[in-house]
């Protein structure tokens, strides 16, 4: 008999580990928290997925094709993990960094050399950001190659493209925050491109018909001035730390919900 006793609830002589588990889980406090009690049967395991808020994102059963690493490459999950890591390290960095012209660069340097564990935190944030851009692209490539964007998942592809845009915008707004030469000129160049937009950019075509000038065009609205300065810094900071992560999180929730509803794509 190779069947595990837990499968059918047979009363065997329980080991020490089972006793400890029973002690921790067989009480009202545990049950009030997890509702289903300790999931020692298949039915209870499925009930956990159905009735627990934390676990409800997971399906009660997963087809084996959904677990094939050679098929999924796990890139969507890695991207989400990196986003969580960036959120965590980013919030920790916010305790030291002040987005103000005279302080931004020195605060970044302090994080690197003076703050306990600042170097590892800043580098985790930086490398995870680079890795996330990479993993988003690889994830999209995988979805494309496996045809997972096809019906009924077309709209989830659209949400994914929006998430790609947000990922790149998060990277771009984070670029300015160290307030070093690299970020300053990169954002100068990047935002100057907005001036070439037709109608709403002062260097773009047809803008003269609308009376669009350097001090009222789209670039002016983005950086809050005619040049990269204090306004641009605080705006990049707020977009980077609050607005864009919130929008991205909302879209991610929707993205994952669609994955659950449509099921995992797989080889037929």
């Amino acid at each position: 008999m190779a069947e595990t006793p837990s499968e059918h609830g047979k009363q065997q002589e329980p080991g020490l580990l089972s006793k400890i588990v029973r002690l921790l889980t067989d009480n009202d406090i545990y049950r009030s928290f997890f509702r289903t009690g300790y999931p020692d049967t298949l039915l209870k395991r499925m009930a956990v997925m159905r009735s627990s808020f934390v676990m409800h994102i997971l399906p009660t059963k997963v087809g084996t094709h959904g677990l094939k690493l050679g098929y999924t490459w796990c890139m969507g999950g890695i991207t989400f993990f990196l986003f969580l890591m960036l959120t965590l390290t980013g919030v920790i960095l916010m305790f030291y960094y002040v987005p103000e012209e005279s302080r931004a660069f020195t605060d970044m340097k302090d994080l690197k050399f003076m703050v306990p564990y600042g170097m590892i935190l800043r580098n985790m944030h930086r490398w995870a950001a680079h890795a996330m851009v990479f993993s988003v692209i690889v994830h999209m490539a995988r979805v494309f190659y496996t045809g997972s964007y096809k019906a009924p998942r077309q709209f989830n592809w659209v949400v994914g493209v929006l998430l790609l845009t947000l990922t790149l915008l998060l990277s771009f707004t984070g670029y300015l925050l160290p307030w070093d030469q690299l970020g300053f000129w990169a954002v100068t160049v990047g935002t100057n491109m907005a001036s070439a937009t037709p109608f709403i950019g002062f260097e773009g075509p047809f803008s003269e018909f609308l009376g669009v000038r350097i001090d009222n065009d789209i670039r002016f609205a983005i950086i809050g001035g005619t040049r990269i300065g204090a306004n641009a810094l605080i705006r990049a900071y707020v977009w980077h730390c609050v607005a864009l992560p919130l929008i991205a999180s909302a879209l991610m929730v929707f993205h994952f919900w669609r994955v659950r509803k449509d099921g995992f794509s797989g080889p037929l």
Partner: protein
Amino acid sequence: MAEHVSESSGGKGAPSRRKFFLITGWSSLGLFLSGAGAAFARYFYPGVLYEPQTTFNAGRPEEYVKPVNPTEVVVDERFKSSQRVWIVRSSKGVYAMVGVCTHLGCTPNWFPGEQRFKCPCHGSNYNVEGEVVAGPAPLPLFRAKIKLAPDGSMIITTGLLGIKRPELQYKKSTLLPRWTDEEKIDIAKAPYFLEIKA
């Protein structure tokens, strides 16, 4: 049997009345949301700017060294980092060039040996007149205006902030990387050029 009047077959005009309420309600909501959206967009345009002044005193013209070779110019970089302006001294006089690459806004570097400004970002090259001789820049470098103060020092206005770019570029009808013949006449006289009698 009491007369039963159902909601859907109400008195005369009930459907149109309901339609009127629907249209009014939804259009009010639409109007409110577009107003809120417009206000949100307007919020991103600051009412007051705390940016550095674009007018500064560059000292007396005599302070700037005349070139030895009359075909060359001497570019003074003392205001490059603070104002992004080069004071250029040619054999005939002084003019001020704005150090903003017309491609995407980096600061070019001056190479006296080659008598050229070169932008490090995408490789635009400008000659001493600010005309594009290589690279992606679409327009010549901006000229700042020079006015003589009563004490003989030069007051330089870049006009980067505020209402428009330097008038010359703003009026530029030809989007060419070089000055046209009319523009060449313009940049050789005040306020874009300060003649110095040797």
